[in-house]
C-alpha cells in the first residue's frame, strides 16, 4: 500500500489508517482501482490521478501535479453519494460525495469498459453504507492490537468511587442491571438512599423513556449534586407523581447546604410548554416546592442540523470575505454555542457558588442534557480536563447515558435525509474547544485530540461511537468485536498532550460566553481550505513547544547539576559575595 506525503487533508492522513492498516493485512480489500480519474478540487481546479476504494476508505492520488496531492478518507465519513448528470458523450461519469466532515468531493472518470466490473458508484454505495446493505461496519473487521485496551478506560463504579460514592446520602442501585427500568440508561445508577427501587420503577413511568433523575456528579465539599433526567410526563392535565416529587425532595435533602434546588430545562419555555400537548412538559412549581425552574432556551436537534448545514454553505468551498461576518452570523452556529455554554455556566454557578443541587433535563435527556451536564462537569471538576478524565466523561455522560450516536450520526446508513441526524456531539466538542481557547493551560489535551475524536466519530474504524445505548453495545458485543478509540489514543498519548497544561487542581473554570470571545473553529470547519490551514499544523506547533520545554528543562537540570558540582568544588574557595552578572535569555526561545 502506497503512502503519500504531503497529502490533503493533514488530519485524516495522520490518522491511524496509515499507521495501522498496512500491518493488518487481509482486512483491507481493494475493491476498485482506476488510474484515470479527475478530482474536481474546489480550490485548485481539476486534478488527474488514480482512485482506489477499499472496504474502509477512498484513496486518491494525483499524478500530474507538484507537490504531490492526495485524498484519503474513511468511507464512514460519506453521507451521500450521487451521480451528477448523465454520462457525457466521451463516456465520462461524474459523481459527488457529500461528507459529514464539512466537505464535498467531486470526481469525474470514464465508465469502465468492462461491464462486469462494478462502477465506483456501486462500490461506494455498497461499502459506504454497509448498514443499509445488511453488512457489518468496518469496525467489526478492524483487528489492530494496541498496547492498551480502551474498553477498560471507564469503570462506572471506580468513577463513582472517585467522587466518594456511595455515601450516606447516595447509593448505587442495581435496579437497571438488565436494562429493564430504562433501556437507554446504564446499568449502574446513583440515587438517594431514601428512595427504594420500587419507587424508582414508579418514577420511571412518569419520566419520558423511563429516564429517571439520577446523579451525574457530586461536589466534593458542598455535596451539591448535578442530576440528569428526561422531561416529566405532565401532559395537559398536569399529572403528578408523588414518587417523583419525593425523589427530587430527597435529592435536595441529600445536600444539607441548601434548602432549594434548581431544575434546568434546556428547552425554550415555548417548546417545553408545547410538549404538554404530547404528554410531556415540565415540573410545576406547585408540585415541586423549593425547586426553581429555569429554561435555558437551547433549540432542538433540527435547528442545530439546519444551522450546521448553513455553516457548511458559508465555509465550503469558498468564503465570501467581504460578507464573512454577517454570513457567519446568519448561520446562528456560534449563538447556539453561546446558549449551550451559557446554560452550562449557569448550572456550574449554581452548584459551585450557590452550593445548590441541580436537575438538568430536556425532552428525552439524551441530547441537550449531556451537552449541559458534561460541560458543567468540565467547568467544575479538573479531572475531566485531563485526557483520561475526558474519555471517562464521554463514556459516562454520552455513551452510557444513551446519546443516540447511531441515529444522530447515521453510521453506515444511506438515508442522508434522516431527520434524526443532528450534530449534537460535534456541538459539544466545539464548546469544549471554545473553553480550551479561553483557558489554554487548563486542559491536558490539545486541539488535535478533539479533531481526532470527531474524525473517528464518523470513520467507523473504532467501536466507541457505535450504537445508541449501553444496552445495544452489549447486545452487539461491540467491546468484544471492535477496538476502542481510546486504545488508539492512549497508545500514543504524546500526540494529544497540550504542552502548556497546568493541572490547577480544584480550580473551577467559568468561561466567558459573550459572542465576542467565541470564535469559529476554523481549524476544524475550514480545514479543507488550503489557505486557512495554519502554517504549521497546530499539533506540530504543540510538539515543537513540548520539545522546547523539554530542552529547556533539560538545560535547567544540566545547569543545576553543573551548579551543584561547582558548588561542591568551589564553595570552599569562594565564599565571598558574588558579583551580579547579567545575561540575556531571549536566545533560548
Amino acid at each position: 500500500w502506497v503512502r503519500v506525503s504531503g497529502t490533503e487533508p493533514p488530519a485524516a492522513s495522520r490518522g491511524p489508517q496509515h499507521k495501522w492498516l498496512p500491518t493488518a493485512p487481509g482486512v483491507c480489500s481493494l475493491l476498485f482501482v482506476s488510474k484515470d480519474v479527475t478530482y474536481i478540487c474546489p480550490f485548485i481546479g481539476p486534478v488527474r490521478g488514480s482512485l482506489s476504494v477499499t472496504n474502509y476508505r477512498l484513496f486518491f492520488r494525483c499524478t500530474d501535479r507538484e507537490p504531490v496531492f492526495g485524498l484519503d478518507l474513511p468511507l464512514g465519513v460519506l453521507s451521500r453519494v450521487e451521480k451528477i448528470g448523465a454520462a457525457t458523450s466521451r463516456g465520462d461519469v461524474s459523481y459527488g460525495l457529500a461528507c459529514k466532515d464539512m466537505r464535498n468531493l467531486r470526481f469525474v472518470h470514464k465508465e469502465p469498459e468492462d461491464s462486469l466490473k462494478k462502477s465506483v458508484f456501486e462500490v461506494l454505495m455498497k461499502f459506504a453504507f454497509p448498514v443499509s446493505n445488511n453488512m457489518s461496519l468496518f469496525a467489526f473487521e478492524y483487528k489492530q492490537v494496541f498496547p492498551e485496551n480502551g474498553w477498560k478506560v471507564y469503570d462506572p463504579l471506580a468513577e463513582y468511587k472517585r467522587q466518594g460514592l456511595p455515601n450516606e446520602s447516595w447509593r448505587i442501585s442495581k435496579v437497571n442491571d438488565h436494562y429493564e427500568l430504562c433501556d437507554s440508561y446504564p446499568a449502574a445508577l446513583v440515587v438517594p438512599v431514601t428512595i427504594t427501587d420500587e419507587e424508582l420503577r414508579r418514577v420511571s413511568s412518569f419520566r419520558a423513556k423511563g429516564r429517571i433523575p439520577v446523579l451525574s456528579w457530586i461536589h466534593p465539599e458542598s455535596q451539591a449534586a448535578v442530576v440528569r433526567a428526561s422531561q416529566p410526563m405532565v401532559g395537559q392535565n398536569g399529572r403528578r407523581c408523588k414518587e417523583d416529587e419525593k425523589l427530587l425532595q430527597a435529592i435536595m435533602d441529600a445536600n444539607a447546604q441548601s434548602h432549594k434546588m434548581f431544575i434546568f430545562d434546556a428547552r425554550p419555555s415555548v417548546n417545553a410548554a408545547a410538549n404538554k400537548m404530547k404528554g410531556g412538559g415540565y415540573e410545576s412549581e406547585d408540585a415541586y416546592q423549593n425547586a426553581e425552574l429555569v429554561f435555558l432556551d437551547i433549540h432542538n436537534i433540527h435547528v442545530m442540523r439546519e444551522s450546521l448545514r448553513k455553516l457548511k454553505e458559508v465555509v465550503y468551498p469558498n468564503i465570501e470575505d467581504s460578507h464573512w461576518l454577517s454570513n457567519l452570523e446568519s448561520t446562528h452556529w456560534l449563538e447556539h454555542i453561546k446558549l449551550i455554554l451559557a446554560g452550562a455556566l449557569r448550572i456550574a454557578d449554581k452548584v459551585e457558588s450557590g452550593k445548590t443541587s441541580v436537575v438538568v433535563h430536556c425532552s428525552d435527556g439524551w441530547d441537550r442534557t449531556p451537552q449541559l451536564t458534561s460541560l458543567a462537569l468540565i467547568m467544575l471538576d479538573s479531572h475531566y480536563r485531563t485526557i483520561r478524565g475526558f474519555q471517562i466523561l464521554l463514556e459516562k455522560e454520552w455513551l452510557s447515558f444513551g446519546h443516540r450516536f447511531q441515529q444522530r450520526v447515521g453510521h453506515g446508513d444511506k438515508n442522508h435525509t434522516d431527520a434524526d441526524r443532528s450534530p449534537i456531539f460535534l456541538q459539544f466538542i466545539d464548546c469544549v474547544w471554545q473553553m480550551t481557547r479561553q483557558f489554554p493551560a487548563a486542559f491536558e489535551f490539545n486541539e488535535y485530540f478533539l479533531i481526532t475524536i470527531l474524525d473517528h466519530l464518523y470513520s467507523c474504524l473504532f467501536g466507541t461511537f457505535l450504537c445508541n445505548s449501553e444496552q445495544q453495545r452489549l447486545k452487539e458485543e461491540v467491546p468484544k468485536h471492535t477496538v476502542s478509540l481510546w486504545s488508539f489514543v492512549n497508545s500514543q498519548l504524546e500526540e494529544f498532550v497540550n504542552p502548556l497544561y497546568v493541572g490547577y487542581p480544584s480550580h473551577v473554570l467559568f468561561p466567558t460566553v459573550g459572542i465576542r470571545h467565541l470564535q469559529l473553529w476554523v481549524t476544524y470547519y475550514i480545514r479543507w481550505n488550503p489557505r486557512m490551514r495554519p502554517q504549521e499544523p497546530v499539533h506540530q506547533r504543540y510538539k515543537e513547544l513540548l520539545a522546547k520545554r523539554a530542552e529547556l528543562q533539560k538545560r535547567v537540570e544540566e545547569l543545576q547539576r553543573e551548579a551543584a558540582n561547582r558548588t561542591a568544588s568551589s564553595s570552599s574557595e569562594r565564599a565571598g559575595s558574588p558579583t551580579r552578572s547579567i545575561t540575556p535569555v531571549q536566545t533560548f526561545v
Partner: protein
Amino acid sequence: MLSLGSGGAKSTKPSFVSYVTPEEIKSEKDPPKQEKHPDLLPGEVEFCSANPILKYTQDDLSQRGVFGTLFCTNFRVTFISDEKPQEKTDKTFKNKLYGENDIPLMCVDHIYGVYDEKRKLITGGLVKNKYPSKMIIHCKDLRVFQFSLTFSKEEDAKKIFQGIAHHCLEEKSLKCVFAFSYMGTPSPGTDLSFCRGFHCKNKPKLSIVLTVNSTFTLTSIFFFSFFFRMINAVAHNHLYSVKTEDLSESLPNIQDIQQSYNKFKQFFLIENSTDFWLSDVKWFSSLESSGWLDIIRQCLQKAVEVVECLEKDNTNVLITEEEGTDLCCVISSLAQIMLDPYYRTLMGFQSLVQKEWVAGCHAFLDRCNHLHQKDKEYHSPVFLLFLECVWQLVHQHSPAFQFSETYLTVLSDSVHVPVFSTFLFNSSHHRESVMKAESPLAQSGPLSCPTVWDWSVQFDSKAQNFFFNPLYLEKVKHDRAVRKPHKPKHQRNLSLPSTAFKTPPKKGFFKDETDSLKKMLRVKRLSRWRGSPDAPAATTREFFESWQHRPLDYHGLLLPCLDGPAVHIWMQRYLRWIPEVYILGGGSVAVMTKLMELLSQVQDLKRVLEQRDSSQAAKLDHRPYFQHRLLSFDSSGRLSSSFPFAYTCYRSFKPIIPTGLMQSLMVTDSLASQEDEASSVVSFV
C-alpha cells in the same frame, strides 16, 4: 444606549436595581473631609476641583460607586478616591504618568452629559448655566468613566464640568499642550539622538535627512534632487521595472477610515452590562457594518501586492497618494515589516515608525486631532490603522515578532499622552519651527522633549518586560554573515518618493511636482507589470499560496492570510476594559506565564553559574536584561484575560451570566417547534 438607573427603561430590558442609593452611601461616608491633591508631574498645574464626586464603578450592575474628588489639570482629568486605598495590589504594569483614574486631556474622546435622564453629547462652548447630573467620559483608549456631579456644591460642580469641557473639547493652540509645560525639565534622551541610534543600523538615505535637521530648505532641496535622481534612474536604467500605485484610487480615503473607526469603536465603549449583552446579539453583523476589519484587510492586501511586485516580479514600486503621508506610510511600513525581519524586532519597529511616520511627515497633530479642532476633515486614525494591521501580522505569526501585542496596545495609547513630542507634530519641519519658537531661551537651542521610545518615562523596567514576546524565535547569531550580502531592495525603493514629500509650507509646489512626475512615469511605464486591476485579489492569493507552500521561515518573507476568518479583532486593545469579557484564570497570560517561568529558571541558573565564575563577572555584559519571572506562577490562575491592563483581584470570582438571552436567538422557522424525535411518537405512558 443609556440606561443606567433610568426609571424609564423599556420594560423588555432588564432594568437595574440599585442596591444602595448614592444618598445612602453619602450619609455613611460623610465625615472624612481631607484635602487630597494629585501628585503633580513637573509643569502640571491644577485648574479646578470638586468634591464629593461619585465615580460609578463600571463593573457593577448597581449604581454603586466611590466618592472622591475630581480634578482638572493642564495634563489630565483625575479622580482621587476618598476611601483609603485598599490593600495596594502589586501592579506589575503601572504607568508612571497616569493611573487608572487619570485621563490625559488628549485622551478624552467624547463627553456626554446626562440631563434629566437624557444623554447629550457635550460639544465645546456649551450651556453656560446648566451642568449635567452625570458626566460620562469616553476615552480614546476606550475607557469609559461615569461621574455623578449631584453631590458637590453647585458652583463646584459647574466649575469642574465647565473646566473639563473647556480643556478637553475647546479648540486650543499647540503651545497649550502639556508637553510644552512638561519640557521644562530636559530629559537626557531626545528624539533626535534616538533616531540616530536607530538609523545607524540600516543607513538608508533617509537617515541623512533625519539627522541633518538644521535647515529645512536644504532638506527639501535634497529631497528634490534625490527624487529626480531616482526618477532618472527609474526612467533610464530600470525603465522596464517600475510600477506606480496610486493609493487614493484603490484604498479608502482618510474620511472613510475615520467614519468606519467611529462606528467600530462604539461597540467597545460599553457603559453597562445591559448594553453589553444587547450588543452581543448582532455582534458579527455590527462589526461588519462598521467596515473596519475590511479596511484592515484592504491595507494588508495592498501591502502584499507591493511585496509581490518587489519579491516576485522584481519591480520597483512607487506608491503615491495625494499627500503621500497617510496610506503611503501604512503601506510602505507594512511592506517593510513583511520583507525585513529587522522591523519585527522592537528596535527595528521603532525605527520604522520613526522613519516612515515621524520623519515621514505623517500629520499626527491633525490626524489625531490633538488640538480638538472643529474641522473634522483632517482627523483620521491612520496610525492606529497601521498598528491594527501590524497586530494582525503579530497574531498570525507570533514567533516572528520580538514585541508583544501589549507593546502595540501601549503604543496606541501613547499617541494620546501629551508628554511626548513624537506624535505631536505634523512634520519634522513643523516640530523644528515650533520648538524653536517655544524655546524660552532662544540661545540655548531648541527645546528637547521626551520621545515616546524612552519607555522608562512611562514604565519601569519590570513592566517593560511585557513588551517582549516570549514566543519570539530569535535568529541564530552565526547566520549574520550569510545575511549580510542580502540588501533589502525595498528600503530604497519604497520609502522615499511617497513619504516625506510634502512639507506644509510648500504644499502646492510639491503637489504639482508629484503630479507631473506621476504622469511622466505613467507614460514611460512598460507593462512588465502584469497585474490587471480587476483581479488583484486573485493574483495576491496565488502569491500567498505559493509562499505558503514554502517552508515557513520566521526570519524571511512573512505574508498574512487575508481570508475572512483569518482577520480578527484586536481583543486586548478593545476588550481590556469590559469586565463582561474577562476570562478569569484564562487568556494568553496563562500561557505566557508558563513560558516566562521556564525562561526565568534557565536565566536564574545561568546567573548562578556566572556568579561563580569571577573572571566572567568582571566584564559585565551590557545587553538588555529581561527578567521573566514577572508573576508568581500560582497567581496566574487567578489573573484575568485583561491582564496586564485591568486588574480584577478585587472582583469576586464569579461567572458572568449573560442577561437577555431570550431575545438573542429567535428561530422563527418551523424547525424550532418540531418534535425532537422525528420518527417515533412520544409515548403516552
